[in-house]
């Protein structure tokens, strides 16, 4: 279609920009999805992720940029002509219509044959597990059931794209987790290309084929859940998805060797380390679960002596806050997630001296 998207891309978004007055909600966002892919748009509140979805839906006119579906430029089409199924955060079910009618209205608009519509509605209710509930009004259904009706209504029009705007945020934890896998299975079975907006990183990691991370209107990273978790492109991504310890005032000494005060750390190339020049100040990051406890001491590579300043119980694991002296009285705090069993076995306590090891290939380097 254009120089950016390949023909094989089902949906491609090029240089999407949306301004509300002086405020730039979306700044030059480009991405594409393949047919049947489940894409999650992830970001903190107010980052513009819902605006991306609304632009794709046709509910918001972009200031500039194009949206191409199946090789057809749909940027100027209104929502009613885009054939997108939308599940709103509040579901937006029609309260004056029964579940059945909520699902049927979109079908009735399309076909005049009442028989076919009836059969399809029954089938859809069955698909979302609400057989026999068709004559209930939305107010008579639980949150999870309303969610399913919303999903069935969106699917009824056999949409080119299924757009989900924080579909699970209004549900309690148990229902949310069950619906996660149900939505994913349904999506796979029907093979509909889906974009879901969420601020819940766990939801994105468990459901998505690929994740799009947006911060303050800018696309910061796009990749599989494994990629964005393992190789976060920026400190923002690193701390938004999971948690990350950052050590500042680090200097690159030579290739693969970085200095933190008097400590010397070896960091494997390719984790952001190659981009920086020798002597340049940088910041390094390591995830709490990657910090290894070296209870038996040892002076190996990347072994640091720390002081346990706090222990926080988290059920299956403990989070240890470790003070790492850098130079003189200056120290930095590193969090480490340690399995409960290990904490008990080693008898870890506050104010204990504890050597830790930072694995060479688990440290990421960021520009300071």
């Amino acid at each position, binding site marked *: 279609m254009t120089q950016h998207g390949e023909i094989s891309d089902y949906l491609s978004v090029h240089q999407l920009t949306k301004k509300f007055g002086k405020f730039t*909600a979306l700044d030059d966002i480009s991405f594409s999805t393949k047919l049947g892919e489940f894409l999650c748009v992830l970001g903190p*509140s*107010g980052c*513009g*992720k*819902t*605006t991306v979805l609304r632009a794709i*839906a046709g*509910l918001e006119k972009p200031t500039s940029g194009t949206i191409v579906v199946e090789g057809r430029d749909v940027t100027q089409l*209104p*929502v*009613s*002509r885009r*054939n*997108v*199924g*939308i599940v*709103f*955060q*509040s579901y*937006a*079910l*029609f*309260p*004056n*219509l029964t579940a059945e009618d909520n699902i049927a*209205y*979109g079908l009735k*608009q*399309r076909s005049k044959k009442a028989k076919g519509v009836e059969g399809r509605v029954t089938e859809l209710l069955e698909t979302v597990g609400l057989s026999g509930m068709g004559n209930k*009004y*939305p*107010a*008579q259904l639980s949150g999870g059931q309303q969610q399913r009706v919303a999903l069935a*209504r*969106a699917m*009824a*029009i056999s949409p080119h794209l299924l757009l989900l705007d924080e579909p699970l945020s209004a549900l309690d934890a148990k229902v949310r987790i069950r619906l996660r896998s149900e939505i994913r299975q349904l999506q796979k079975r029907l093979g509909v290309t889906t974009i879901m907006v969420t*601020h819940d990183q766990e939801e994105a990691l468990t459901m998505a084929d690929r994740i799009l991370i947006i911060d303050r209107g800018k696309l910061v990273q796009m990749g599989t859940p494994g990629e964005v978790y393992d190789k976060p492109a920026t400190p923002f991504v690193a701390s938004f998805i999971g948690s990350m310890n950052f050590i500042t005032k680090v200097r690159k000494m030579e290739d693969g060797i970085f200095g933190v005060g008097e400590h010397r750390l070896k960091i494997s190339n390719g984790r952001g380390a190659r981009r920086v020049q020798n002597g340049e100040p940088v910041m390094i990051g390591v995830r709490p679960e990657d910090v290894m406890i070296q209870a038996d001491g040892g002076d190996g590579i990347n072994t640091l002596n720390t002081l346990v300043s706090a222990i926080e119980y988290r059920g299956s694991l403990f989070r240890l806050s470790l003070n790492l002296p850098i130079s003189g009285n200056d120290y930095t705090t590193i969090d480490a997630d340690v399995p409960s069993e290990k904490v008990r076995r080693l008898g870890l306590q506050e104010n204990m001296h504890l050597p830790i090891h930072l694995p060479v290939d688990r440290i990421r380097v960021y520009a300071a």
Partner: protein
Amino acid sequence: MEKIETKTIILPLNHKKNTQYTWLNPAIGFSKNLMFFALPAALIWYLADKSDYNWQWYRIVKYIGTFQKESFIPGPLLKGLWVTLQISVISLFLSCLTGLITAVFRLSPSFALRAIARIYLEVIRNTPLIVQIFFLYFVLSPVLGIERFTSAVLALSLFEGAYASEIIRAGIVSVSTEQWEAAASIGLKPFRIYRHIVLPQAIPVIIPPLAGQMISLIKDSALVSTIALYDLTMEGQMIIAETYMVFEIWFAVAVIYIIITAGLSIFTHFLEKKFSKSFNN
């Protein structure tokens, strides 16, 4: 962007039913109603009795109606009531229609439609009804060749329609934009969205204030007497000119107006219940 979606829930302040004295409820209700009318009536009666005015209530009856040769001949008051009812009912219907169209125009994406609605609304709202009645009757009706009754109905419908439009617009706007978006996303056209999704949700919100407006319409219809249309008020004036029974006739006229408006109130109350029951659980 996180938005906290607010649902329109119609929660009447007085929604708790008194379950303790169920069998007494009709009695309590009746005595309450009685108090509403009986107390003011008693007060007026007391004041009237104290004053030196020579009350001649018995003379009113023949102005309401008489029996001649076993058939009922309606008196001038009833004839006036019939005219008032005709004007009111037609205007009621027309003003709701005008209101709905104006509201839809004001919410339309078209600038022209919005402008038309806005101009109509401002012109009507910012001039007195009596001026509008005179303008229609003395200026427009000779030009357009419309008669007295029609110009009265038109003036009232246009006037009340402007107010009704704001009430209807408020009701439509109270339906969340997501309802529109959801309806549009499944391919519904604007007419069907209004007809099947938005208006059914707006109506329970619209009914109570619209009922108030329609009661105003009935009372405002008294102003058509100024263009010599023989409605209830005009007939009252005529009888007074003939009999000098100022107090009795005005009281009688007032009571007749109360009966019509109270009837309308009860009817809208019933409508309100019917519509809000259907889906608000």
